[in-house]
């Protein structure tokens, strides 16, 4: 049972895919599947709630992050039951309503998925018994609300409203988190039920006022209390089901719930009463007054909800058992009548296409059922007997009866206000249809004509009707409300509460009723006066401050980004390299520069080589002709190859030398392809560029000197030396490539193949039309001058020799310098030489096929050890005619074929690109 309790919030969240892809697969309407999930959860809640009816609480506590004492702890007591029941029952009705309200063809799955996530998060908030669990679900409701308000994301108003709601509620939530963490520090536990036992100690702590302030800011932002009320009306751009569910019945009540939950822990003090009740009363009157002057149907309902939240907050601030019970009764009643009113407003908008009250009127004839639903709900909201609203108003007045007269007066006045804006709401049904106004032709055109408006689809008024009938039933048979509210109040106050709502026609009831009715009519007839109130309250709102702060933060971000995001790639290059240089310089400075590295006597050979390489690098910069720069780069490359040889690295020395040759050819081809316009553009800011370049050079030189210093660290390669015999070779470099680190090489040759494929696609091979032109070029090549004849003779003799030497290097790579890489490069160099001598035709082979063959051979040979029962690429020696042949030789052969194919594919593509010029 307890585990089922823990699963309740999670099931709703995890069921979100049911609304999207799975519903699509089942060909079910996501609204129905979502409503089914909600109904199932409601049934589970009813089963779980059995012990709660007899005054017990159901608890679950699982380890979450044991190291920091966090637990996934949930409690189902009377208070949680009231809210959870509300969330699920209204959820079912709203989801059914959405099936008819939300238009198909939009991203319906997204809407329902977010509704389910919200439902689960909201359940989590009211069930949580751990401050962090509470906070996580709390923020999740804000997130889900953001996506739901912004559902029509092509509408800038929807995006702005969603952002405003998110910023305000999440900012409040973060402030609250600080308060909750302090609370846990003071109370020594994250668990709410454990903290309740330490209420006296918490209230006596010097941090109490700070904790209270921080937590209250969280509750007030979520429940739209003055001065944070401004986000709720902006959130009305949401689809009506969202407004009904989140912004009338559930999410905005999370703050009220938090007040109720923390009342026994933090409440009962003068500070609590002084901080909460006045805010609640001010919000109540402000909401009611502004609701009166709204022209938008949903705006009216939004501000009336603000007022209702204010009343509940004021009651919980007051904190007497009677006030707490009245607040709980009001939560239930409000959900019923306000839910019905929102759904009815949605039905009206659905049928008429407008929510502007001035353009609506006389709808009672066209929409009699909707009218009936709205009338029931309005009478309850206005607090007239025999509706539930009357009972809760009376209970609220009674709760304040022995308090300050100003509080009692404010509650009575708010009753009058709710009657007044209730009448205004009903005017769209009762009043006469609007007269087309000639002066404003467009208004007349958009005003709905009486003929086109009719009763909405069944699903649009049935859920509203259910809620309206419930609102009536709450008044006629208050037993269920009394029971549930009594349980909730008992959970808050800790003592059993018997709520009795109907005391018969007492003098107080009569007086309240008379004042409210009389005042309501008076206010309704004087409602233009409320315009001034609106200005006054607009001044009280933090809305303008929010707008200004939001705009300022955007402007500030723009200025800040403008400072460094210049749009010039070179600047970004300097940032990146500058950061790297700074970090390396820091490392060099911290390690210190070893004096032992300074040269003691210079050997002639290395010195000359290094000098030539450095001179070539400088020449690559200084050469004005591109050809010169390319040749200088070649000289630098060959010198580097010599340096490798001097540093006991013959393998890379020959690889470097061969690759330099092939690169040189590529660069020369590229110059003809695209170098025409290059005149050695002078840099835009040579001084700055040189400064950055020299800094980078200096730091790199220092780092190079540092890493060259002899270190005491053990070499990583000792293992490789030890296993060389097993792998069947002596050249450890080659063994690392084809055997010890074979998988790495596999990846590297794949990268090479991908690069070659990229080149083929970027500089496409000759098309059919161009191929037809080839014979002419071949004839032209036959009538070659003497130099070409010499080249051909050399090529004819030399290229077979090169190929033969390459194959030798491949075969002996295991024992001396050589291997597949250098062999492949040499063969391609020989092919390039032949193509230079005999025309490009030699290059027009399918080198991509050779590449694929090489990759396939390398991959296939890695499987040879499997035959011998060893893992992939494990070194295996094959017995062939008395000789032991390492399986990695086949891998190396694959590498050679792939390298040959890749290099020649690249050369061919670029050569053809150059010829096309």
């Amino acid at each position, binding site marked *: 049972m307890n585990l089922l309790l823990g699963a309740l919030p999670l099931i709703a969240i995890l069921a979100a895919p049911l609304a999207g892809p799975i519903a699509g697969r089942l060909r079910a309407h996501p609204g129905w599947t979502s409503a089914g999930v909600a109904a199932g959860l409601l049934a589970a809640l009813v089963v779980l709630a059995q012990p709660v009816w007899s005054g017990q609480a159901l608890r679950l506590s699982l380890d979450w992050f044991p190291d920091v004492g966090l637990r996934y702890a949930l409690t189902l007591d009377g208070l949680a039951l009231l809210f959870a029941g509300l969330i699920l029952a209204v959820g079912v009705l709203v989801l059914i309503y959405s099936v008819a309200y939300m238009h198909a063809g939009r991203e319906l799955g997204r809407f329902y998925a977010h509704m389910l996530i919200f439902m689960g998060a909201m359940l989590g908030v009211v069930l949580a018994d751990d401050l962090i669990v509470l906070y996580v679900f709390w923020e999740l409701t804000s997130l889900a609300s953001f996506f739901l308000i912004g559902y029509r994301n092509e509408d800038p108003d929807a995006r702005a409203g969603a952002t405003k709601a998110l910023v305000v509620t999440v900012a409040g939530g973060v402030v609250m988190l600080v308060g909750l963490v302090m609370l846990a520090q003071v109370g020594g536990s994250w668990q709410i039920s454990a903290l309740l036992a330490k209420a006296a100690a918490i209230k006596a702590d010097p941090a109490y006022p700070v904790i209270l302030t921080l937590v209250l800011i969280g509750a007030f932002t979520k429940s739209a209390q003055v001065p944070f009320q401004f986000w709720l009306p902006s959130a009305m751009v949401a689809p009506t089901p969202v407004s009904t569910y989140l912004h009338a019945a559930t999410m905005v009540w999370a703050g009220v719930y938090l007040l109720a939950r923390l009342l026994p822990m933090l409440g009962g003090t003068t500070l609590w009463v002084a901080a909460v009740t006045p805010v609640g009363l001010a919000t109540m009157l402000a909401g009611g007054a502004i609701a009166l002057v709204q022209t938008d149907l949903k705006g009216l309902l939004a501000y009336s909800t603000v007022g209702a939240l204010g009343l509940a907050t004021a009651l919980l601030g007051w904190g007497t058992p009677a006030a707490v019970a009245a607040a709980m009764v009001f939560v239930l009643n409000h959900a019923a009548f306000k839910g019905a009113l929102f759904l009815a407003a949605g039905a009206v908008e659905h049928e008429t296409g407008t929510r502007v009250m001035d353009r609506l009127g006389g709808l009672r004839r066209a929409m009699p059922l909707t009218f009936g639903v709205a009338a029931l709900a309005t009478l309850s909201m206005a607090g007239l007997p025999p509706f539930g609203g009357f009972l809760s108003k009376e209970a609220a007045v009674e709760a304040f009866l022995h308090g300050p007269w100003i509080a009692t007066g404010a509650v009575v006045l708010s009753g009058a206000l709710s009657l007044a804006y209730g009448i205004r709401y009903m005017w769209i049904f009762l009043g006469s249809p609007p007269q087309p106004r000639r002066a404003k032709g467009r208004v007349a055109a958009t005003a709905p004509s009486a003929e086109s408006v009719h009763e909405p689809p069944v699903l649009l008024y049935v859920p509203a009707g259910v809620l309206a009938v419930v609102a009536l039933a709450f008044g006629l048979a208050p037993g269920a409300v009394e029971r549930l509210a009594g349980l909730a109040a008992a959970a808050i106050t800790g003592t059993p509460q018997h709520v009795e709502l109907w005391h018969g026609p007492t003098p107080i009831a009569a007086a309240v009723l008379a004042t409210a009715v009389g005042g309501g009519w008076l206010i309704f007839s004087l409602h233009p006066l409320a315009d001034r109130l609106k200005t006054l309250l607009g001044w009280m709102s933090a809305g303008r401050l929010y707008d200004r702060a939001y705009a300022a933060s955007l402007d500030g971000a723009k200025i800040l980004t403008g400072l460094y995001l210049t749009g*010039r790639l*070179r600047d970004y*290059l*300097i940032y990146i390299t500058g950061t790297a240089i700074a970090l390396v310089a820091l490392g060099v400075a911290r390690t210190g520069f070893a004096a032992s590295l300074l040269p003691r006597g210079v050997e002639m050979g*290395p010195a000359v080589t*290094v000098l030539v*390489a*450095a001179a070539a*690098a*400088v020449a*690559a910069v200084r050469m004005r002709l*591109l050809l010169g*720069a*390319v040749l200088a780069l070649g000289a*630098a*490359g060959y010198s*580097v190859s010599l340096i*490798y040889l001097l*540093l*006991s*690295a013959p*393998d*890379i020395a020959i690889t470097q030398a061969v*690759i330099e040759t092939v*690169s040189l050819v590529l*660069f020369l081809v*590229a110059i003809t392809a*695209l170098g025409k*316009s*290059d005149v*050695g*553009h002078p*840099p835009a800011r040579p001084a700055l*560029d*040189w400064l950055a*370049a020299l800094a980078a*050079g*200096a730091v*790199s030189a220092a780092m*190079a*000197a540092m*890493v*060259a210093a002899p270190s005491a660290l053990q070499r990583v390669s000792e293992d490789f030396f030890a296993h060389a015999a097993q792998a069947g070779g002596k050249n450890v*470099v080659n063994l690392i490539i084809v055997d010890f680190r074979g998988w*790495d*090489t596999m990846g*590297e040759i794949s990268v*090479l193949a991908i*690069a070659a494929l*990229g*080149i083929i696609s*970027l*500089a496409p091979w000759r098309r059919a039309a161009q191929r037809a032109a080839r014979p002419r070029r071949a004839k032209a090549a036959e009538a070659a001058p003497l130099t070409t004849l010499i080249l051909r003779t050399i090529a004819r003799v030399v290229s077979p020799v090169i190929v033969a030497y390459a194959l030798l290097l491949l075969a002996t790579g295991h024992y*001396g310098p050589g291997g597949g*890489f250098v062999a492949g490069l040499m063969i391609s160099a020989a092919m390039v030489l032949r193509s230079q001598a005999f025309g490009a035709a030699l290059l027009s082979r399918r080198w991509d096929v050779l590449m694929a063959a090489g990759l396939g051979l390398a991959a296939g040979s890695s499987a040879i050890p499997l035959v011998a029962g060893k893992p992939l690429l494990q070194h295996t020696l094959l017995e062939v005619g008395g000789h032991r042949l390492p399986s990695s030789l086949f891998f190396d052969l694959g590498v050679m074929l792939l*390298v040959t194919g890749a*290099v020649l594919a*690249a050369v061919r593509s*670029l050569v053809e*690109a150059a010829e096309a010029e």
Partner: protein
Amino acid sequence: MAALVALLVGVMVATGFYLLLGRSLLRQIIGLSLLSHAANIIILLAAGLRGGVPVIGAGPGSMTDPLPQALILTAIVISFGVTAFLLALGYRMHLFGGEEKGDDR
């Protein structure tokens, strides 16, 4: 020897980076090649300058660390692939925009 080679690394990084900051695409590619030379040499220097060719039985005395050499060997081939790819990319830019200078603002 180490100090001399370290000096060369500095020269190559400085010239390579200066070319990279320039506006000609071909010269930027040349700069990149110089930078990869410098990077390879640093890796080789990190192996330490002790010992001979890492071929077993090639000579008396200790052998140098072969792992950096294996890393560099593949790095050389891959930077060749990247260079060739960049040249093809430059050709493509030339075809479509006629603009083989890097960004020119």
